[in-house]
């Protein structure tokens, strides 16, 4: 599904070159549940953003279903993100002025129709948020916010979920609830790449990648 070939990402920080990903190569196959681990600054988030077409690598190639992701135009890459990739972040990144339904429907590529609304309602129901659709994110608990972020990521039935420490701000109970949703998505054939420090997903992941200073340390 996603092939990384010698992917390197360099940043310039305060005049010095920092290598966040160093000749990273790996294959992510359809239906895999992969956890990505590593110490802070090891390049986990960079890897996730690069896999998701959000951050152009300094060198190397990222292929998504055989297409060179960064050879696509910005608009085609945006379309691909919208239709095939779901993102979930530790900080939720919900739109503060939209209600819950609006926050899910914001992921809709165009004007949401009846089907999208129905899908959004189903997701809110599934994530136990249907009784709060007219609330705003700041009225939710951290667990509820993250469930909402997962619901948003799933609206367009993506092939892959890229999650960056989604349980980092959650208590163990809520963390386990969120992981359950990733597991359910995985069981329906979805691919999950989960950056995590925790152990909640250990029993479900069928592969683990370890990064150290931007290098693949263990696969």
């Amino acid at each position, binding site marked *: 599904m996603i092939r990384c070939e010698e992917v390197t990402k360099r940043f310039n920080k305060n005049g010095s070159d920092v290598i966040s990903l160093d000749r990273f190569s790996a294959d992510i196959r359809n239906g895999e549940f992969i956890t990505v681990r590593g110490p802070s600054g090891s390049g986990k988030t960079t890897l996730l*953003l690069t896999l998701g077409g959000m951050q152009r690598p300094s060198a190397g190639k990222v292929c998504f279903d055989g297409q060179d992701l960064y050879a696509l135009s910005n608009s085609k890459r945006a379309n691909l993100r919208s239709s095939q990739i779901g993102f979930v972040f530790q900080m939720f990144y919900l739109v503060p002025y939209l209600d819950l339904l609006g926050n899910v429907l914001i992921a809709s590529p165009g004007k949401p129709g009846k089907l999208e609304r129905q899908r959004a309602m189903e997701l809110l129901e599934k994530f136990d948020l249907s009784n709060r659709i007219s609330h705003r994110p700041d009225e939710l608990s951290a667990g509820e916010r993250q469930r909402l972020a997962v619901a948003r990521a799933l609206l367009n039935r993506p092939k892959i979920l890229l999650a960056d420490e989604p349980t980092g701000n959650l208590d163990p109970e809520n963390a386990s609830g969120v992981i359950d949703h990733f597991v359910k998505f995985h069981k329906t054939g979805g691919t999950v790449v989960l950056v995590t420090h925790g152990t909640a997903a250990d029993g479900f992941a069928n592969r683990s990648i370890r990064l150290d200073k931007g290098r693949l340390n263990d696969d």
Partner: protein
Amino acid sequence: MQLWAQIICEIGFRKLNAFFSFLGLTIAVIIVVASQLIAESDERETRRVTRDMGFNLRLIPAATDLGQFYRDGFSKYAMNASTLDRLATQLTNNVSFNHLVGSLRRGYAVNGQSVLLVGLSKTYIAPGQGKKPMGFVIKTNTLHIGSEISRFQGKNKGDTIQVGTQHFKVSNDPIETGTSDDITIFARLEDAQSILELEGKINEIEAIDCLCLTTDEDPLTILRKEIGEILPNVQVVHKQKLADARAKQRQTREKVNAIVLPFVLLASAVWVALLAVFNVRDRRQEIGILRALGKNSWRIAGLFLGKAVLLGFVAATLGVVLGMWAVLEFGPSLFPVTKKAIQINPSLALKLFVAAPLFAAFASFIPAMLAVSQDPAETLRED
């Protein structure tokens, strides 16, 4: 989610930012409306004042003795009527005068009464100076008579009066003016030429100067030079008080248009732009996640430009209403215009409904581009 729905929700959420943008735009619209209406009113007022005062430039044959001219009210010399045509052809160029009327003026006796007989040509108006001639228009076979003539001759509107060998119908209700107009008969130029047996002649051209001068420039020198180049055989008499009155009116309008308006527009643009920059900064993470969700640059720019357009349109609506009300209410006490001269301008309102949203979008353009060019990965990796 639809763009407009999202914009409206965001405005409702960040009320203060939207309110201050709206306020800046509304004030700008109010000032544009007010200055434009005042300028238009001032133009009307100037025309009215000038019309009431009469022409302020008198061109008379060069040989005229000014002592005789001021004593009698006309030059005893005459010039060819073609002089007027020559001057009129220059009106299409950038000349400093307009509204030309040629006249033939002479003392004359009507049934034992000494009167001033004035034959008036048609009015030549420079392009862009309106269509209405100054003063009144005299129709064929009619005369316009002063109140003293009316009293002495016992003639009123509709009556027939004999002047020389010709008969004319009185076309006006004579009203006492307290000026030489009370003993003046106004006729068509051709009729006056025929009565005075001075066919093809005139002895004066009246005009209005349209010099837009600063206080340190001498209008008479400029006018004499310009007219002297076209008609070397005339001398120019300038009614300074009338010219000053016109200049004062004009300068009031120009001050508003040249200083206040650009300043207000610039200040408003900077204000709206700054608020849009703050808005972009506040929404960095939102922009990042929208990018992650696959929203393209048009959509991101649309959020900011659309907001500006919406606020601009609402500001135009309120600003037009408030601006027009303010001018009607306070204009006559703050500016040298009368309430009668102030008129609502629907086309200005329509223009502003288009211009204000465009102006707001223009002011928000750079912030919108900042939003578009923002690296979403940078914001999404922030803890």
